């Protein structure tokens, strides 16, 4: 039985005998785009057209009485499809030697003029391949969702920073308002739309949608405020700051609705289960939908609590019950002793949802959701009361090897 070594390289598929001679080859067209497409296929462990043609021609030329050696396990299947016996061998001498001689073959096949050009050719090809792969990554919508959620988090940070500055600044003029209006956005609206204390009246506040009681309180106090009198010239920059905050708030709304449309597209099940914001945060922590889909439920449960988790692992203390999924209302509204159980249950359902999003794309979230709600109700009835505290044994040794 003849032994044949098969390999697929940039420019084509080759069959080589034990002595390293090329006994058959199928060469790809000399077009850089076509070559790049070929290479991408090789990397995805798919057979190229040239490789499949080589198999057919081998069988018709030499019959099926061949022992074929390949160095990629995924090719074994295609060999048995055409009825050939396949042997898997990593780093076989024959193939390694053949690869060393590639520059010579490239010249013979007319892809380059001299062996010296080989590396230049390789350099050009590898740059083109890498660029096309990067583009493929850039097209992935999940990365857009990751950036959008990070932008939203940035906005929140800036917004809060500005809010405390605004309160401090405007309090020189009207210190009492700080306690009366707790919501940052309402506070910013008053400053931006009405400005100086003198212009804070019933009509204006009503337009901003405050309740009757609140309006009376604000107007009452504004009449006898202890704050300094400010000229329009001094109020103006404060109003500018407040206006930027309103602008930021609008931008946040826009991003949120954009994010929810992207999330529905890339991860419909996850989004249905925990909403677009939390879903995107999980994506952001994992890096991409693919990596998230490959995480176990136990990891998803503590995503975002890495600091606490690794501290616990190092010292042998208690591991965290939840990471970013704490933001799921059923967890943070639940009493403390139920949270861990709900977090565990949610993360298992999430793990299923994310895998469905990434691998099949089928919509199964409604079933997951009813299951989850059922379990949460069960937890709430079974563990309605806090557990009785067991006296801890003092001086417990940390769990360390």
């Amino acid at each position, binding site marked *: 039985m003849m032994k044949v070594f098969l390999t697929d390289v940039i420019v084509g598929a080759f069959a080589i005998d034990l002595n390293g001679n090329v006994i058959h080859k199928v060469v790809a067209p000399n077009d850089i785009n076509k070559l790049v497409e070929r290479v991408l296929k090789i990397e995805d462990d798919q057979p190229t057209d040239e490789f499949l043609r080589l198999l057919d021609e081998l069988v018709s030329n030499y019959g099926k009485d061949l022992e074929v050696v390949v160095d990629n396990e995924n090719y074994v299947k295609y060999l048995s499809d055409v009825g050939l016996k396949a042997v898997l061998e990593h780093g076989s001498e024959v193939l390694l030697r053949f690869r060393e001689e590639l520059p010579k073959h490239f010249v013979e096949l007319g892809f380059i003029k001299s062996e010296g050009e080989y590396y230049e050719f390789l350099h050009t090809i590898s740059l083109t391949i890498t660029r096309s792969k990067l583009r493929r*990554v850039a097209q992935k919508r999940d990365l857009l969702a990751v950036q959008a959620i990070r932008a939203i988090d940035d906005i929140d940070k800036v917004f809060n920073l500005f809010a405390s500055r605004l309160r401090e600044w405007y309090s020189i003029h009207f210190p009492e308002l700080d306690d009366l209006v707790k919501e940052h956005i309402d506070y910013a609206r008053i400053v931006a739309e009405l400005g100086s204390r003198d212009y804070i009246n019933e009509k204006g506040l009503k337009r901003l949608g405050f309740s009757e009681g609140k309006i009376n309180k604000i107007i009452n106090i504004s009449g006898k405020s202890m704050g300094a009198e400010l000229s329009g010239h001094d109020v103006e920059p404060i109003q500018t700051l407040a206006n930027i905050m309103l602008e930021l708030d609008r931008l946040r709304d826009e991003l949120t609705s954009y994010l929810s449309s992207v999330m529905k597209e890339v991860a419909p099940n996850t989004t249905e289960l925990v909403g677009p914001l939390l879903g995107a945060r999980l994506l952001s922590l994992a890096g991409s939908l693919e990596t998230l889909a490959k995480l176990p439920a136990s990891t998803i449960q503590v995503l975002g609590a890495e600091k606490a988790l690794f501290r616990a692992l190092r010292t042998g203390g208690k591991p965290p019950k939840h990471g970013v999924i704490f933001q799921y209302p059923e967890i943070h509204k639940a009493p403390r002793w139920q949270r861990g159980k709900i977090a565990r249950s949610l993360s298992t359902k999430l793990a299923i949802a994310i895998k469905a999003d990434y691998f099949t794309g089928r919509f199964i979230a409604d079933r997951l959701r009813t299951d989850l709600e059922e379990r949460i109700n069960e937890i709430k009835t079974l563990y309605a009361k806090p557990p009785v505290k067991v006296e801890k044994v003092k001086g417990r040794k940390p769990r360390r090897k």
Partner: protein
Amino acid sequence: MAEVVRVYGHSTYKDVYVVELEDGSTRLATRNLVVGKRVYDEWLFKFNDVEYREWNAYRSKLAAALLKGIKELAITSGSKVLYLGAGSGTTASHVSDIVGLEGRVYAVEFAPRVMRELLSVAESRKNLIPILADARFPQRYRYLVGYSDVIYADVAQPDQASLVLLNAKHFLKEGGYLYLAIKARSIDVTKEPDEVYRREIDTLKKGYFDILDVIHLDPFDKDHAMVYARYVK
């Protein structure tokens, strides 16, 4: 920037230079392959019409290993180097300087984010071949990479030693060399760094590597070590 007093070849490491500055301090440097071009925020020195790039030991683990006196630098002009975990190309660019146009650097990096930066470094450096791939599957880039003299690995993966063995099997020539940067914290946070190093080194020994030197990289990098080994399959 302080004035350059003189530049001379390093006494132990071929193709690595020492730049002496006016204030008496010295810097490690490599001869810039692409004159006038910076890769990160390193200094460029000109001396006798030759341009050198400062090699910052706080940014590059290989430079740190050299400053800490690792036994040998097997990467010299003309070497073919398989670089696993090239990142944004800081160290890879210096390796590219050292091997020169006769040499080759196959730079494998898995993260698209840093690959964008590595790509722009590779565009101007003809000897640097960027490969966006997972180093755990060498068969996926075997069509690009030829036999290598040296593997330089800085992958910060829990299974890095076995990953290196797999790549060595595919690409490293007999008698070739390995530099492996081990980041103890990436492998197992619960174990002491020395224990992690020992375990990784044991894996290498089982895979036909002769350990020639192990260097701790502090103070440049905390809990890092550089292993220097020879392949004797």
